[in-house]
């Protein structure tokens, strides 16, 4: 198994981990961080910034964000489980190599079993379990990266991007989600580490989806990832984050911040498949701006974690911009998926769709929380929101909390939500065709989510279907 240091030596691409040696040069910071105590202090934030050799403005930004975080109370809405988050009991920075030292043996049985059943190869399993393995398709990976470079696409981890493209990063960083936007964004702003930075030049269409683990950087499994994607005029890019296989994490709090900007005529699709282990609180702020004639699509699948609170949003700031949010949430035993989306129509002739599907089983709770806002002046706005929920048994729960605010008369806005169970007639029909009840239920559930899974890259869609089937059998968690 290759260690990160070996990997670093093997990289020939400029900008990817080339500074690895440099980063480990600050010995005192390194020692401090290696033994970083739990809890969040000003000193820790300063050390993180020092360790990463960040410019002064970023250090100041982090410290101010820390002040905001400490001053803000925890939100009182959402899940009652939020009260369980103990901020003093979390390690806010774990050095990359420390992560890599965790062994495959530490990964829980149920997670290992799922990998087997999903047919995921050994090396990839280790990697996905956060153990830091060499991804098998390294050769493919290198080739893809060369192609991107030729097109002028920047695709780096955020730490490297800050170092190599400081002005570009500074232009956009925290302009969509300011440090003080909410408590968790403030936390992320203070201690962020890792995440992706993507810049696509005008007119460039990136054909294949950019995947987070193409970065081969153990900061992947970061608790506090910070991602920015800028699609310049007329460009197209599809970014995929996460994986269907369960991602084991000993970190109990994951709080990422994702900012997307689609410039005129550009198109960004951001796909997330979240399947964190069941000890994780996943509290994320994701927001996008779509300018004139631009499109932003969020495809958001939430399978894991103990509690996820995540409402990807699109601000339609330019005429004829379009926003789309496709969301699947699966809430099993002990889980609360509190997801949804937010769309703001702030310019004329903008359109949007929100399509959310949720499944609750074994006492799980699936909630949809959304906002659809049409500002004054955004005439000609058209929007449709459809939320469907499937409750698989009598112990589970589904909530729908949409808010619609309309300040303009020339609009066409519709919202529908339905909650139901698997229809007996449907099951009966399938049974009469020789399919047993369990199979029939799985088929129906897959059919229920099909409108969204068909938007996923194929290998995800296939794995997703398999994973849902496994969840239905109750063999996970």
């Amino acid at each position, binding site marked *: 198994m290759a260690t990160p240091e070996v990997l670093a030596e093997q990289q020939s691409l400029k900008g990817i981990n080339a500074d690895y040696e440099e980063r480990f040069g600050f010995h005192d910071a390194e020692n401090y961080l290696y033994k970083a105590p739990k809890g969040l202090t000003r000193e820790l934030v300063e050390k993180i910034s020092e360790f990463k050799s960040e410019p002064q403005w970023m250090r100041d930004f982090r410290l101010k964000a820390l002040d*905001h975080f400490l001053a803000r109370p925890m939100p009182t809405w959402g899940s009652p489980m939020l009260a369980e988050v103990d901020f003093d009991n979390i390690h806010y920075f774990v050095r990359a190599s420390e992560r890599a030292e965790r062994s495959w043996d530490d990964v829980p049985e149920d997670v290992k079993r799922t990998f087997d059943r999903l047919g995921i190869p050994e090396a990839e399993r280790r990697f996905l379990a956060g153990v830091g393995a060499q991804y098998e398709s390294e050769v493919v990976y290198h080739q893809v990266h060369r192609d991107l470079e030729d097109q002028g696409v920047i695709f780096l981890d955020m730490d490297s991007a800050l170092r190599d493209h400081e002005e570009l990063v500074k232009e956009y960083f*925290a*302009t*969509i*989600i*300011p*440090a*003080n*936007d*909410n408590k968790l964004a403030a936390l992320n702003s203070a201690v962020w580490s890792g995440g992706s930075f993507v810049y696509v030049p005008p007119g460039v269409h990136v054909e294949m989806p950019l995947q987070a683990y193409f970065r081969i950087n153990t900061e992947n499994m970061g608790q506090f990832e910070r991602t920015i994607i800028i699609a310049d005029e007329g460009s197209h890019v599809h970014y995929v984050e996460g994986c269907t296989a369960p991602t084991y994490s000993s970190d109990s709090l994951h709080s990422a911040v994702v900012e997307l900007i689609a410039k005129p005529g550009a198109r960004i699709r951001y796909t997330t498949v979240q399947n964190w282990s069941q000890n994780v609180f996943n509290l994320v702020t994701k*927001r996008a*701006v779509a300018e004139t004639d631009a499109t932003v699509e969020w495809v958001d699948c939430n399978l894991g974690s103990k509690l996820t609170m995540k409402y990807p949003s699109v*601000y339609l*700031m330019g005429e004829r911009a379009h926003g789309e949010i496709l969301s699947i949430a699966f809430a099993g035993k002990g889980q609360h998926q509190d997801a949804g989306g937010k769309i*703001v129509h*702030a310019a004329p002739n903008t359109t949007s769709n929100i399509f959310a599907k949720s499944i609750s089983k074994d006492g799980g709770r699936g909630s949809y929380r959304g906002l659809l806002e049409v*500002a004054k002046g955004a005439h000609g706005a058209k929007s449709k929101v459809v939320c469907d929920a499937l409750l698989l048994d009598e112990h589970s729960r589904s909530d729908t909390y949409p808010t619609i605010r309309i300040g303009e008369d020339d609009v066409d806005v519709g919202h529908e939500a339905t909650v139901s169970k698997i229809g007996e007639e449907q099951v009966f029909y399938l049974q009469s065709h020789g399919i047993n009840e369990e199979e029939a239920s799985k088929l129906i559930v897959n059919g229920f989510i099909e409108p969204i899974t068909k938007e996923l890259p194929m290998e995800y869609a296939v794995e997703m279907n398999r994973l849902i089937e496994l969840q239905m059998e109750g063999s996970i968690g």
Partner: protein
Amino acid sequence: MPETITVCSIDDLPPGAMRLVEWEDLEIGVFNCGGAYFAIEDRCSHDDGPLAEGELDEATCTVECPRHGSRFDLKTGKPLTLPAYAPVDTFPVVVADDVIKLEVD
């Protein structure tokens, strides 16, 4: 025909300072940003709460809303960061005989 209201003397508004003025049902924040004067509605368009007590950045002549961090350009009233997206009103500032005045409609 715009009306002019008196704010204060220039001694009472040194660089980096802000004064709140009320006119009819509006509250307006008057700023001295590095020697130049600006006046902006005391309202963040994100939640209609107060704006002017937020942090003033003299380098960029912006004020940051204390509740969710949107930064507003004092010259144009436009928000430079989300979550606010709608601009707020600005008012021309006139200095005559060492007295700062505002033009309101």
